[in-house]
């Protein structure tokens, strides 16, 4: 990160980040924004657990409670987990495949800013008359009846940030297909790249149904279009289908990249090649495919009929097979390895039993008759927290520790990291394990309180108690981050000593053009191969030093996304405020004019010249 080394002023740094098209800086933007929303969603979670800590509580009202759970789920999935995943994809994938950037650096920046403004828009609902309150699934029969503008904030905000996600997904697909270094065949791609590839394909196919659903919802609410209103010939179940056709692949978008991170961590800290590489790749692709054929398992109790339920139940259970293949391969990777228990490795090891618990409850729910009992109870809440927190969040925390040195050239404190790990793991299990039993005892999900005489008091109290552990764990993590940044102790290349893949072979801090010379990839775990052969540089090169073509920074993506943000306010207050239509037009005008500027004004980028690359400074102007 040359910009930091140059000691720019605050304003210059800010401008640099607002205009950057460098994947490494966009990764940091995603990390900071996603981290911020993770804290926001966490605070909402704490409010939920305070309210449920004792029976007949009146800490928050029923209406406010609905807003909090809706925003908790929506924030955590769309504004915390997804961007944090994109942070690692951006930070790692181009380096891992030997590319100088993603395929479309401009779009990369646009994707981030759309996510950013969509997220801000959604959260402004708190201050502008109330947040959405129909659950993160926003079922039409609830959301069409919801007064105020909460649901409109949901639909418009997700539309904008969803567009950003789609852009990012397409960008990674093109990057991985086209920008791999010579020698990096598909079957030599590290698993994080593979899982990014499959997750991006899922994004490509899963987000359009959400877009369609949200548009229908917007039309229904704003122009009385009646797509989902059965009294007018519509059908409320259509929303459920559209949402889950998106929603189930979405949960795999959340977990697959983390499978990739864990695969890297297991291999690195077992100091062994990943066991069954090709089976892992095959399983990842298969999960991606099956992910599109199971969505109706969220709707068993909607009344689809026995045949449909049976088909979707069997398809759902089938997913457990490739997932099982992965679990065994991870275990066998550790088997006989010389294991080093770093913080990242601890997270990875803990992930296996946690995710298996979530998978087993998943298969239980997949059997339709049993799901009539489990559906909409706390059992479901326990299931998806075991897969999402036990899988995705543990993966994000593991990835944070593992890739921090790659992103910042410093290392998070391992002792504090381990304290965070244990507190988080204990708290997580205290909070959610017991919710299985709450569900079996009949406690429905999404209720704002419960009576004292139902036998749910103690379990709820334990659950809330566990949440405190997680809050403390996250606080210690934040302290760790601040401490690490303050100390700013450079760790250099290959800080774990056991890096296997290309990203660890690059000198630290990573030059802004990533690779002076494009590397030649000579096998799976290419850095490991070079190290084994005593190559001090860590890379074999595929080309002589030559001029490097780089894109210019641009402020246009920010402005384009900002235009949509402005326009969304116009759409939201349409028919209510006199200024609504002008604002809508103004917003769209900003967006289209900046798009026009981008198209009409040639920006061919610039070259870093060979001579500048040859001297010691490595091309810094």
């Amino acid at each position, binding site marked *: 990160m040359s910009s930091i080394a140059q000691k720019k002023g605050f304003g210059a740094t800010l401008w640099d980040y607002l205009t950057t098209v460098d994947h490494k800086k966009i990764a940091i933007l995603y990390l900071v924004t996603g981290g911020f929303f993770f804290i926001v969603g966490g605070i909402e979670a704490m409010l939920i657990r305070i309210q449920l800590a004792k029976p007949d509580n009146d800490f928050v009202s029923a209406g406010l409670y609905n807003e909090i759970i809706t925003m908790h789920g929506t924030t955590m999935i769309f504004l915390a987990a997804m961007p944090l995943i994109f942070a690692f994809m951006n930070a790692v994938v181009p380096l891992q495949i030997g590319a100088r950037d993603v395929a479309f650096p401009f779009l990369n920046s646009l994707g981030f800013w759309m996510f950013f403004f969509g997220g801000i828009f959604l959260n402004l609902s708190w201050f502008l008359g109330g947040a959405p309150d129909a659950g993160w699934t926003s079922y039409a029969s609830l959301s069409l009846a919801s007064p105020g503008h909460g649901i409109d904030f949901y639909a418009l905000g997700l539309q904008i940030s969803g567009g950003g996600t789609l852009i990012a997904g397409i960008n990674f697909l093109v990057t991985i297909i086209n920008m791999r270094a010579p020698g990096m065949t598909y079957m030599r791609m590290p698993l994080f790249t593979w899982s990014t590839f499959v997750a991006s394909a899922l994004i490509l196919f899963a987000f359009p149904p959400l877009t369609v659903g949200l548009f229908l919802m917007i039309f229904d609410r704003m122009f009385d279009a009646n797509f989902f209103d059965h009294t007018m010939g519509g*059908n409320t179940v*259509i929303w459920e289908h559209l949402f889950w056709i998106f929603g189930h692949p979405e949960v795999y978008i959340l977990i697959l990249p983390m499978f990739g991170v864990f695969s890297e961590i297991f291999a690195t800290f077992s100091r062994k090649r990943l066991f069954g590489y090709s089976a892992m790749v095959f399983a990842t692709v298969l999960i991606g495919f099956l992910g599109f054929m199971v969505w109706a398992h969220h709707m068993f109790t909607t009344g689809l009929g026995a045949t449909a339920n049976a088909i979707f139940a069997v398809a759902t259970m089938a997913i457990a097979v490739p997932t099982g293949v992965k679990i065994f391969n991870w275990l066998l990777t550790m088997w006989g390895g010389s294991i080093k228990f770093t913080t990242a490795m601890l997270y990875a090891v803990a992930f296996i039993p946690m995710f298996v618990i979530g998978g087993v409850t998943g298969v239980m729910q997949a059997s339709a008759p049993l799901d009539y009992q489990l559906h909409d109870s706390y059992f479901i809440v326990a299931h998806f927290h075991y897969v999402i927190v036990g899988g995705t969040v543990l993966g994000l925390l593991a990835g944070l520790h593992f890739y921090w040195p790659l992103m910042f050239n410093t290392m998070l404190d391992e002792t504090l990291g381990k304290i965070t790990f244990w507190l988080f793991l204990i708290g997580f299990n205290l909070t959610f394990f017991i919710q299985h039993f709450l569900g079996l005892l009949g406690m429905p999900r999404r209720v704002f309180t419960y009576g004292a005489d139902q036998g749910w008091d103690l379990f709820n109290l334990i659950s809330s108690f566990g949440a405190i552990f997680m809050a403390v764990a996250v606080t210690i993590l934040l302290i760790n981050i601040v401490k690490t940044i303050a100390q700013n102790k450079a760790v250099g290349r290959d800080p774990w000593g056991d890096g296997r893949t290309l990203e660890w072979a690059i000198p630290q801090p990573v030059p802004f053009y990533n690779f002076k010379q*494009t590397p030649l990839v000579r096998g799976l775990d290419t850095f490991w191969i070079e190290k084994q052969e005593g190559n001090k540089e860590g890379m074999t090169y595929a080309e002589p030093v030559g001029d490097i073509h780089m894109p210019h920074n641009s402020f246009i993506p920010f402005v384009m996304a900002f235009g949509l943000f402005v326009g969304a306010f116009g759409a939201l207050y349409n028919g209510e405020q006199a200024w609504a239509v002008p604002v809508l037009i103004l917003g769209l005008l900003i967006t289209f004019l900046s798009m026009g500027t981008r198209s009409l004004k040639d920006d061919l980028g610039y070259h870093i010249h060979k001579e500048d690359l040859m001297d010691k400074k490595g091309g810094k102007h």
Partner: protein
Amino acid sequence: MAHDVQNQMRTKTEFEYTRRRSADEMRGQVTTFAIMIFLTLIAFTAVYADFSPNLVVPIILLLAVIQVIMQLYYFMHMSHKGHENAKFFLFSGAFVAFLTVLTFVTIIWW
């Protein structure tokens, strides 16, 4: 990526080879074009002949699918090398869309 400009001269044999390839392809395109016009005529006839809609609609749908495939392979060069990824994604997308429509038709609107 070093951007050094390179010029290539083609030999006579290479030139002949490309020429023959292009001619072959041209023939394929003309044939396909003729077939497609013929298929369109069938579709029109089916409608004008006043067959029952239960027959006409499936026929037209089927002909449309055939035309799309011909379009992709002969006019949009999907039969060429280097289109494997595009092909894979196209068919995956078509498959997902098909599943969706099938489900909607069978369990919502039937």
